[in-house]
Every structure is written in C-alpha cells, then in structure tokens.
C-alpha cells in the first residue's frame, strides 16, 4: 500500500513536471540560437522521449540515487541532507513547542468550557488556526525584529550548527511562528478530545468507584483519548513540516522549502522531484508509524486488524 502510493507519486510528479516546463529555458538567455537551445536540451537529457527519461529515472531511484541538479550538478540526495540541517530542527522544534502550547490550552479550554475564560481560550485558538502561517511570520518580524530588535529577521548562520546558540537563535522566530499556527490547530483537537472523555460514562463510573478526578482521568481518560490524538499528531507533524517549508521563504532560511521553490523557478526537475519524493515518503512513514503506535496502545485496534476474519467467523 505504502509502496503503491509512493510509486504513484513518483509517476505523477515525473509526468506533470515535464508537461508543464522546459528546464532549458531557465539556463539560456535572450540571444541564444536554436542550435544552442537544442544542445542544452541534449546535455540535460530532456530531448529524449519521456518514457526513456522515466525508465532511466526509475533505474536511478532503485539504486537510491536522486540524480544531479540540472542547474549546478550537485547531487540532489546530498543537497537534501544539507537542507535538512535547517528544516529538520525547524520542524521538530516547532512541533514540540506546538504540543507544549496545545495540550494545556486545549485541556484547559475543555475542562473550563462553561466559563468565559475557557471560551476565550478556544476562540483565540480558532483565530490562531485561521491566520495563514506566512502572515503570522510577517507580523512577528515587524514587531519582534524590526521593532524591538529581539530576534534576527531572517537567515541562518553560514557555519550551520558549529555554533548551536547562533543557529537556535536564528530559528527562534520561525519556530514560534509555526508553533502558534500549528498549536492553535492542535489545541482545538485536544479540546474536543478532552470534552469527549469528560462526558464518558467510564469516567463517571471510575469516579463512583472512588477514584479522584485526576486518577480517573489519567488511568482511563488519557489512555482512551490519546488514540485518536496519535493520528492527529502524525498529521500535525506533516503539517508542521509543510509549514516549515513555507515559512523558510519568509525568514530566508536555506532549507528544503527554499530548495523546492528555487527548483521550481529554475525548472530543476531532479531537485523538485527529490524534495517532493522525500516529503511524500516522510508523510507516508509518519502515517504508518502512527498506525502501529495506535495498535500498540489500543488492543481493540489490534483485534480489528486481524479481526476481520474473526468477526466473519462469529457471524
């Protein structure tokens, strides 16, 4: 299933890119002759029939080679790894921060849902989730960088992580930006999951059996509530990754998002394919891990997995 989805993504991407653009035009300038254009196409290999190009590319992929950039001939795989130096920490830090914001806020908003501050919490999180991430970024830069000069307005140290302090400092504002938006989304899920649990019979039963509210919530509530949250968290992690890709442009960060956008602009097919395939694989793998985790936590899901047979047998 996973492989099929991946193969489909590879094929669609390959065809769409080649139908929509011609990488030669990103390299030549006004004054180039037809012969020069043809020679450049031949050098890139885009003058060959599309199926030939496709099979060559599949062959490359099977040997775990993402190919070379059309424009500067760098190895696409190496370049992705270099860019992950920025995008991976950005994604993980944003995700962690968004969970740290969302869980207490969402829980609090549900627990106190009948009070005015509970309502305010959920209203604010609605608002936070409704604003586009780049807009939050622009606002934060205007206030915190240009106004108060607390954070750099963008950029990443040229020395990468040699100076972790400097690297973290340059990621601070983008992380906050993504966390605000992603955290607002997540808070709404946490709130509704908590509301669900709080209204459950088993919680009342546990309380009636003499457990304190906290114990009942921890023993029964959390374990029940966390199952749907895991798949939401997996989706959220993917969303954060996409958010990182967008926000890199606002903050001039040399990550995967920048590689993708520049690749599209320069019609650098191998780079665009590389980044998108990597992202696709990442999303698919995250979904898979979430599935597995859910089954470990919730025995009922394990049953339903092998269970089709059993249910049938019973019927």
């Amino acid at each position, binding site marked *: 299933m996973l492989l099929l989805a991946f193969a489909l993504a590879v094929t669609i991407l390959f065809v769409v890119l080649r139908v929509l653009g*011609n990488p030669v035009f990103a390299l*030549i300038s006004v*004054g180039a*002759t037809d012969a020069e254009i043809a*020679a*450049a196409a031949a050098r890139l290999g885009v003058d060959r029939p599309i199926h030939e190009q496709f099979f060559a590319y599949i062959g490359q992929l099977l040997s775990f080679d993402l190919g070379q950039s059309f424009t*500067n*001939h760098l190895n696409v795989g190496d370049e992705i790894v270099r860019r992950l130096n920025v995008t991976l920490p950005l994604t993980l830090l944003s995700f962690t921060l968004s969970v740290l914001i969302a869980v207490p806020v969402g829980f609090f908003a549900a627990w106190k849902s009948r009070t005015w501050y509970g309502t305010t919490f959920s209203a604010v999180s609605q608002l936070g989730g409704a604003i586009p991430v780049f807009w939050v970024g622009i606002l934060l830069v205007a206030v915190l960088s240009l106004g108060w000069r607390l954070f750099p307005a963008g950029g990443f140290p*040229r020395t990468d992580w040699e100076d972790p302090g400097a690297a973290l400092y340059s990621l601070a504002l983008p992380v906050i930006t993504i966390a605000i938006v992603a955290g607002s989304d997540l808070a709404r899920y946490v709130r509704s999951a908590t509301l669900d649990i709080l209204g459950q019979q088993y919680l009342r039963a546990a309380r009636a059996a003499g457990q304190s509210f906290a114990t009942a919530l921890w023993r029964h509530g959390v374990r029940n509530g966390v199952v749907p949250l895991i798949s939401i968290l997996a989706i959220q992690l993917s969303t954060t990754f996409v958010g990182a890709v967008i926000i890199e442009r606002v903050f001039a960060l040399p990550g995967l998002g*920048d590689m993708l956008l520049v690749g599209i602009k320069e019609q650098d097919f191998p780079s665009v394919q590389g980044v998108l395939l990597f992202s696709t694989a990442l999303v698919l793998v995250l979904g898979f891990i979430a599935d597995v985790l859910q089954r470990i936590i919730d025995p009922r899901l394990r049953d339903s997995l092998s269970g089709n047979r059993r249910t049938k047998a019973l019927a």
Partner: protein
Amino acid sequence: MTSRRFNRLLAASAAVSAGALLLAGCASGAAPAASGDADASAEIVVGSQNEPTNLDQIFGGSSGVTEVFTGNVYEGLFRITDDAEVEPLLAAETEVSDDGLVYTFTLADASFHSGDPLTAEDVKYSLERFVGDESIAARKNQLKVIQSVDVVDDKTVAVTLAQPSISFTYNLGYVWIVNDEAGELTTTADGTGPYALADYRKGDSITLEVNEDYWGDAPANGGVVYQYYADPTALNNALLTGAVDLVTSQSNPDSLAEFEAAGFQIIEGTSTTKELLAFNDRLAPFDDVAVRKALYSAIDREKLLDAIWDGRGELIGSMVPPSEPWYLDLADNNPYDPALAEQLLAEAGYADGFTFTIDTPDSGVHSTVAEFLKSELAKVGVTVDINIITDDEWYQKVYTDKNFQATLQGHVNDRDINFYGNPDFYWGYDNADVQSWLAASEAASTVEEQTELIAKANQQISDDAASVWLYLNPQLRIAAEGVTGVPENGLNSLFYVYDITKA
C-alpha cells in the same frame, strides 16, 4: 606601431563612452565621503535577489554569476570599467595585425587561486571553452568570430579572427580566464582575481575570501559575502536590521523613502535594462511602420515611468542607452501625441482601431506595464488583451516559436541593438540597410567608423518604431551608512566589490 594603434583605439572608445555618460547626466546618487576610518579587514555582506543558477558563466549561470564572479574571482584579458571603458587586465600588452585579424596578447604575471601560474594554455582553454559546443554563454555569438587560438610561448597567445571585429576586446572583457586544470566549474572556482571562492551554499550564500597572493592591488575590504533572498521583503528586512550592508539592486521604489528616512544611502546609476513592448513585425498590422509609430505615440511614457519607478530611470527612444558610444537622444523621435496616433492609424486604414494580444511575462513589473498600455491604447481605439505567461512560456511561445502578436520584455544586455540586424530574431524586424550597417560596423577599422554606422542603424530603427522602447530602468542600490566604494552603474550586471569598505 600596431600596439600604439590599439591604444589609440582604446582611448577613443573610452572618451566616447565617457562623453556619452556625461551627456546622459548619469545621475550619481550619493558619493558619500568616507565617514570615520574604513576597516580594511571588514567583511562586506551584499544582499541580492539574483542568485546564480550555478557558478559557471558558460552553463547559463545567468546575470547573477556575473555579479559575483566577473572581475572579483575571475578576470578577463580586459576589464570593462563601471563607466563602460575597456582597460587591459590579464592582457598586459596587445598587438593587433594591420588587417585586424590577429591579436597577440602578452599575459600579466598572474597566478590562479590554486597556485597554478597563468599561462597561454589557460587562455587558449578558456576562449575555446567559451565558444565551444557545450557553451550556452550569453556572449558566445559575438565571440564566434574567433577562428583559432595559438600558444606562441608560455606567456604569449595569438588569437586569429575570421573577420575583423572592433568590439573584440570589449567582448573579451566578459570572458573569464579559468585554470585549464580546474575541470567542472559549476560548484567550484579557480580564477586569478582578488578574491577566491571560499564557500558556496546554494539557496543561501556565496562567500569570497581575499586572495592574499593577488598579482594586482589588494582589495579594500577583508572579504565579501553575497547573501541571497528569494523574497524582496526578507531582503529589505535584512538591510534594515543590519544583516546585510548593501543591496545590489532594488527593484521596488516603494520602499526607498523608508530607507532614505532611516539614513541609508540610495545610489542611483544607469543600467542597460530596457523595457520593451516588442511587436511581431512580421504580422499585420505590425508590419506597417505607421501602425507601430501610432501605438508608440499613443503611450504617455513619462507617466508610465513615474508610475513604475517614481520618476527615476530614463526615457529612451531606441534600443541604445546613454552609456553606449552610439547613443542618440531619440526620446522624442516618436513623441507622445494621441492626435498624431489617431491620424497615423486612420492613414493605415485602422480608423476604427483593432485588437491585439500582449503576451506578458508574470515576472517583474510587466503586468503593471501591460495594464497601463491597455488603458493608454484604449484612448486611441485600440483594444489590448493581456495574456499572462511564465518566463518559460515566453521562451517557448514568443522567443522560439515566434507565435505572438506583441510582448513585453526587459532586455538587459548592453550593445544589444545587434538583435535588430537579425531578421530571424523573435520580433522579426527586417531592414536590409540596418542589417548591412550593423554587419559593417563590426568590421569597421576605427571606433569612429563603428560609431557612425551603429548610430545610423539606431536612427533607422527608431524612425521605423521597430519596437516600442518604453524606458531605461534605473540602477538602484541601497547601502548602509558608512559604506563606500559601491559601483554605481549596472552595466550588464558587472559589480566589482574590491573598492567597497565599511566603517
């Protein structure tokens, strides 16, 4: 004797172009006095939106590669100064045969960053590479006149041309001399310039360090970093917060007031970028000179320039900007005169107007310009349909297939009036006189003769309204307080960084 003749030639061309610049009143923005002491070890951070696609000029590195490397990391046999003069650089001495076909260069005592000394072999390799089959360099066609390159001895190289080419040394000013041992140069560099490539981070930055063994004068700063920004707002923010010291090209005049108020220097020079409304001159009604002239006169270009560049930049009336020797002031040759436009249209049989489509690239200011043209031409009864296309589609549909009625394009190259001498060029302007003048100008034996011939072509294309030359872009750079030595003009994206200092 031949050498003296050559020097005269250089001097003459220098004088002519310098004069042209003066005539143009080449508005230099700020010539700031060095405030405080400049720090010779300071690293200058240059912000730019023009990231090269790769680091080699012959593989379509784009204008971004010129901005970083030409004159800074790589040197040519000649140098084009910021005022468009030609000076000897790696060619310490030049002798030209009497028939103008053989150029013999004696090389300067330079060496590459890798330590390899500069030899005649390197020059031969570099020139042959530039015009070779693999090359898609922007200036390749002008240098195809090279017939052979022969190594005379270690420090002497002779270049034989197929026919005399008066712009030969000028064109050589753009050709890098690279180490023949260097191999692929799309991600590395090995030149003879005052800086060596220290670091290349695609999507982020290019770092140049001072070449301690440079054969010429040491640079005034301690290294230069080009920091790239895809987003113009991010670039402006970087300048405002001091993350970069200067910006090579400001494409949006809206933010200038903000920078000026904050104490930044606005440096205005002249560029070679011309905004064109190019017709497909092969097709009716644009095959009729009267129609083209009518449309030219229907457009209030002064108002357009005001709207786009806030009054900066210049009005031009042909393809030639004031920085070129054969410039003529033709800005009013096709004057703004709607009544004249209507009269010309009526004479051409289009009293009721007509409808045409402008293929408009979605980059830069073209779509704003297109909207303006649409409203201007509507006033004389001509209806414009705007068809927005990508740069890619432009190269396919307009440039290669020539399947268009009219288009907008910013033509960035210097001396590109030559395109009007090629009837197969995308706009299809076909005038035998212009073709022969331009061809003869290249074979001219003196600069005066060359200038005279190109000026004739210049006058003719303007009289014919071969295209509508809307305006010449200004070259706007913004620098922080205390930054000095920033080159003013943007002639073909050249940007020498060795004089830049900051306090």
